[in-house]
Every structure is written in structure tokens, then in C-alpha cells.
């Protein structure tokens, strides 16, 4: 089979060097930035975040303090966790609207077990398993029945909320073990535990999406499902795994949130799905799949968090906050897009001048 390989090799090496060598060199600086459009996008999004931080710090000096960053970190952690998982789902062209309800259901699963004296690690594991189970059902129905993820996860959004209420109609607080809040409220050095957990989740997701086979499959499935299938990618398994993980991460977000607020509560997480999707899309992932970066999402989640924190700290009136929040959201994405395109355009122009 390797008969002709050597002769091809020689030829092709030449062509690669001669044909394209020049232009590659002259552009190298910009190329390295532009080559990975996704990376560029992430950098621009980061700039938007920095801009927001600078603006908010003018309105209230307390915005730019360690304690506020800790506050922000704690509040944003569940969003980062769920949004990391959602990013992968959306890269694969899926969608999971059930995250907010699953978060609530898992919160009460953990709390109700803890109240019954189940050791916390076990209670948390049970919650994770429950989240994974709902995720599995989501994934299996979506993949096997080939129905729209929106409807399936809108359905499980309702089901999970119902289950949460059936387990406990209102918040479980009384009888929780004293160490219930440890996870949500302790710090390691200056870092609140929730943000460390979120960081680990984001890093693992980011690493997995870039460096593992599974990660490539996710992009391939989202980019061109048919081509992926014909290349031997286990499309269904990949998709189901993503929904399982999304359910599990919603559960983890639920655990982090409920140990932070000190209760297991079936009412939490209403509308969380829109917040998560906003974070993902601000971070540069689109509904059409195939593209996206976890790190972009992390920045997107922080933008979402900074937005309400900054507006609160700036003392904006509640009703005006709705307006401001909407405007800043749109502005952030528009600026993001413009700068991004600007950079790409400059990059493209360079070589012409040269």
C-alpha cells in the first residue's frame, strides 16, 4: 500500500514549500492571531469584559475590591458550570433548556437525602446521578427518536420542576447538617470554593474540547453530522454523552448554589436556561453548531454576572436595571462583533500593502 507513497511525498513537500511559503511568512504575525478565529473572538470578548469592569468601577469604588470579586465569583460559579456543559451541547448543535429545573431538582435531591442523614458526599453523588439520568433521558429521546431538543428539554424542564416540587414543595432548610454550607461558603486562600469548582469544570471541558478525541467529535457532529457519521464518529453516543454531562453539570451547579444559599429549594433556577444560553452565545458559540470555545463561554458567564452585580453596585433603580441589562447585553455583543471583524479586516489588508 505504501508503494507510491515515497514519490508523492517528495513532490508534495516541494509544492508546500515553494508554492505557498512566501505569503505564509509575510503574514505570519497576523496569521497567528487570525488563524484561530475562535481564539481571536475570545480575546475580543475578554476586552469587552474589561471595558465593562472599567466603566462599573467608576460608579462605585467598591466594585473593584477583592471582596466584590469573591462575591462575583461565588455568584457566577453555577452559571460557569452549567454554561460550560451547554457550550459543548451547543457546539454539537444541541440545546438543553432543562438545566434550570434540573438544578432545582438536584438541589432538593441532595438536601432531602442530607436531611435524612445520608452523608453529604453520598447525597451529592446521588444528585449528580439524578442529573445525569435526566440528561440521559433527554439525550436518548433526542437522538433515538430524532425529535427537536427544544421540545424534549422543554418537556423535561417541566418534568424536573415537577419532581423537585414533589420531593419537597418548599425549601428544605431545617435539619440540614451543619457542614451543608461548607462547599458553598468556604474559601481556599482568597478563592471561594464555588469558583474553584467552576474553574476545574471549565478547564476540564476546555481541555477535553481541544485535546481529546471526544472533543473533536463534538465539533465534527455539530459541524457536519453526516460527514462525521461517515467518518466513523459515534454520533449518537457523543450526543447522548453531552446531554448526560449537561444534566450532571446542572446538578453540580445546583449543589454549589444550594450549599451557597444554605437550602435545598425547588423554586430556584427559573429562567436559568436563558442566562446560560446568553453566556454561551456571548462567548461566541452559535446555535448552528460546530463552533465555540469554553473559554469564551466562561468570559460570557462573567459578563452576565458582572452586568447585574455592576448595575446593583452602581445603584441603578430596579426597573431601569431591566433596560440597562438589555442594552448592555446587546452592546457587548455588537462591540464584540465589530472589533472582531475590524481585526480580521486589518489582518486581511496587510499583505496587500506588503
Amino acid at each position, binding site marked *: 500500500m505504501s508503494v507510491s507513497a515515497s514519490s508523492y511525498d517528495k513532490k508534495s513537500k516541494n509544492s508546500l514549500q515553494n508554492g505557498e511559503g512566501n505569503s505564509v511568512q509575510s503574514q505570519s504575525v497576523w496569521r497567528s492571531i487570525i488563524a484561530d478565529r475562535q481564539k481571536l473572538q475570545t480575546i475580543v470578548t475578554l476586552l469587552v469584559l474589561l471595558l465593562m469592569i472599567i466603566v462599573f468601577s467608576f460608579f*462605585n469604588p*467598591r*466594585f473593584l*475590591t477583592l*471582596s*466584590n470579586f469573591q*462575591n462575583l465569583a*461565588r*455568584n457566577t460559579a453555577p452559571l460557569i458550570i452549567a454554561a460550560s456543559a451547554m457550550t459543548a451541547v451547543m457546539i454539537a448543535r444541541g440545546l438543553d433548556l432543562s438545566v434550570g429545573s434540573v438544578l432545582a431538582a438536584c438541589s432538593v435531591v441532595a438536601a432531602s437525602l442530607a436531611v435524612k442523614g445520608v452523608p453529604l458526599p453520598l447525597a451529592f453523588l446521588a444528585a449528580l446521578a439524578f442529573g445525569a439520568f435526566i440528561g440521559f433521558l433527554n439525550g436518548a429521546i433526542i437522538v433515538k427518536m430524532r425529535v427537536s431538543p427544544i421540545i424534549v428539554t422543554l418537556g423535561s424542564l417541566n418534568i424536573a420542576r415537577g419532581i423537585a*416540587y414533589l420531593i419537597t*414543595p*418548599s*425549601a428544605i*432548610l*431545617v435539619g440540614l447538617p451543619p457542614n451543608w*454550607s461548607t462547599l*458553598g*461558603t468556604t474559601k481556599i486562600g482568597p478563592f*471561594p470554593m464555588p469558583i474553584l469548582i467552576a474553574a476545574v469544570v471549565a478547564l476540564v471541558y476546555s481541555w477535553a474540547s481541544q485535546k481529546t478525541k471526544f472533543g473533536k467529535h463534538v465539533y465534527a457532529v455539530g459541524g457536519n453530522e453526516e460527514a462525521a457519521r461517515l467518518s466513523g464518529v459515534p454520533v449518537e453516543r457523543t450526543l447522548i454523552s453531552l446531554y448526560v454531562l449537561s444534566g450532571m453539570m446542572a446538578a453540580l451547579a445546583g449543589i454549589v*448554589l444550594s450549599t*451557597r*444559599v*444554605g*437550602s435545598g*429549594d*425547588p*423554586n*430556584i*433556577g*427559573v429562567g*436559568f436556561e436563558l442566562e446560560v444560553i446568553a453566556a454561551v452565545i456571548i462567548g461566541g458559540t452559535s446555535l448552528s453548531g460546530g463552533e465555540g470555545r469554553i473559554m469564551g463561554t466562561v468570559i460570557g458567564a462573567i459578563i452576565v454576572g458582572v452586568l*447585574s*452585580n455592576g448595575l*446593583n*453596585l*452602581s*445603584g441603578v433603580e*430596579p*426597573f431601569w*436595571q431591566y433596560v440597562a441589562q438589555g442594552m448592555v447585553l446587546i452592546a457587548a455583543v455588537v462591540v464584540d462583533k465589530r472589533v472582531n471583524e475590524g481585526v480580521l479586516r486589518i489582518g486581511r489588508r496587510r499583505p496587500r500593502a506588503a
Partner: protein
Amino acid sequence: ADGAVAIAGKSFSTELCEPADPAAVKDIPAAVSGFTGYASEPGAWLDQPEASALTGKRVALSVMGLGQPYFLAIKGHWERLAAKYKFELKVYDGRFDAGTVQKLVDDIISDAPDAVAFAPLDSGAAVPQVKRMLEAGLKVVTYNVQPTEVVAPRVFANDFDGPRIVGCNAARYFKEKFGDKPAVIGIVDLPQLPQVQDRKNGFLYGFKSLIPTAVVAQSVDGGGVIDKANPAAADLLQGNPTLNVIFGINNDSSLGAIAAMKAAGSYSPDWGVVASVDGSEPVMSELGSDASPLKAESGYPPYDFSLATFNLLAATVEGKTNPNTQVVVGYPPISPTEEGIKTWLTQQYPR
């Protein structure tokens, strides 16, 4: 030195306080949600009667949202009543959503029960909702939030005065514990509900009656649910380092604030005072704890509401009421003593 609970017990009172400096409270609106006078129809509304006109009837009970301990307790009380007086009960959950409430009104009309106990979500929107049911020939009483216009017999509590006593008690405790320290107030609010605005204004009226120098630093929108109240309260604390009074418009709001204080490391009776209304079980354990800054609470009594509504509805079915008939239930301040808490919980939140 006394513990926090002891101080709170000492300063606790069931009496309203009058403004020391009328100028300090003159800008606080007395009521937003449609004040119709708080005189209650005379009668034994809180007793369990021998027999009820509801026996054998189909009764629809709507609640604002079953996810809250208060409404869950209401449902529980009603189910006990249904078992005791033998009527068919169907519970409709408004899910704290205006649209859901609109639809359940229509579904109730379609189902045509013999009697309806209706909990409006918004005092304004409630008026036409109740009218629609009346026009369909249903017997209706409202409870909890009162409609802005007189349309049907109703049971309600004084959403201004109840929290006003909480304000008084919070101020009494504050003075007792912190002396003349300037009070800086933060509100964990839910600005879009008129009933909630009454609660907030009542609290401020009461608090400023005793501490006229108190200032409101900020109101944040806590959404009335713990996962939104918590970050909002965290921001409130973060943005206002001198804050030492927090009023949560319901239990989720004050519990969100408590959790935020725990995370920020300011959870201590020495921080100041947290106050709220509702009186659900988890808040009671804060109230009775020396470690907690939550030291003033008025109860919103589910048992009283259920029974008064039940009796009023029976009277309405019998044709003994007119649209002006109203029952005002108490908004009892809860004594932070073990005894006070226990009495409250046993009756209003039986397990």
C-alpha cells in the same frame, strides 16, 4: 451580656409604634395596593363550625404559587377542612405567574365549581378576574391579596401595618443592641407587586418612627426567590459597607440575605438586624438563634387565612354576604422566644 435572642425578647412588643418625628415618615406612601379600610365583619371567622354550607359542594382553591411554604400550608389546611366537612376540593396553582393565573381563572370558569376561593396575584389585575368569575355565576371570595376595587367578599391582612410592627420591633431591637448607632437600611425587594410595596413601606414607616435618622441605602430586586435574592443581597451588602439593617419582603428574600451574609463573613448578631415577614419554619430557626442577626418577624398566618376564607366562602354560598363583606386577619408579630415560635408554628404550620 444578653444573647441576641434575649435582647430581642426584651424589646419585642405586639404594639404599633407611633412616629417620633412625623417629618421622617411623611413621604412614605401609606398604601399602594388598594386600601379599603381594615374593619373586619364581626363574627367567629376563625372558629371551626359544627357544619358548613360547603359540605357536598365542589370547591376550587387557587394559590399564588405552591412552591412557597405559606401556600403549601394553606393547601394543607384546606385539605383538612375538605376531609372534615366532606367537600370536593380542587387546587389551582398560579405558579407566581400572571399568565398562569389568567388561564386558571378561565379554567375554573369552565369547570364551574360551586364555590371559589381565589388568591389574586396582582391587586389590579384581580378585579376583572373576579368579575369574570362572578359574571359566570360563580360564588367567589378572595383571600391574601385584596383587589383594588370592591368586587367580592374577601379575606386579607393589613400589608402595611403587619410589616410596620416588624419595623417597630426591628428598631426597638436595634436601639437596644446598638444604641445610637446610625441605621442604614437595605431592602431585598420585589418591586413589581403592589402588596410587596405595602410591606416595604410599612416596614420603613415603623422603623423610621422609632429611628427617624435611619436612611435607606438601596433597594435591590431579589425576585422573591432565594436564588435571585441571594446574589442581589450579596450585591447590596457589597455596595453598601455601612449597611446594618436589611428588610426582606418575604422569607426567601431574608433567607437569601442571610446566606449572602454567611458567604461574606458578616453573619453575626453584631452586624445589625435582618427583618422580614411570613414566619415560615426556616426563618423561625433563625429568629430563635443567638448566632443570627434575623431578629424581627411578623407572621403571615396560613391557618387564619384558610379558616377565615373557608367560613366566608360558606357564608357566601349561603347568600349571607355581599361584596363589601370582609374579614381582616391578624399579621401577628412573632415573639423570638422559644415559646412564641412554637405557638406560632404549631397552629399555622402544623406538620
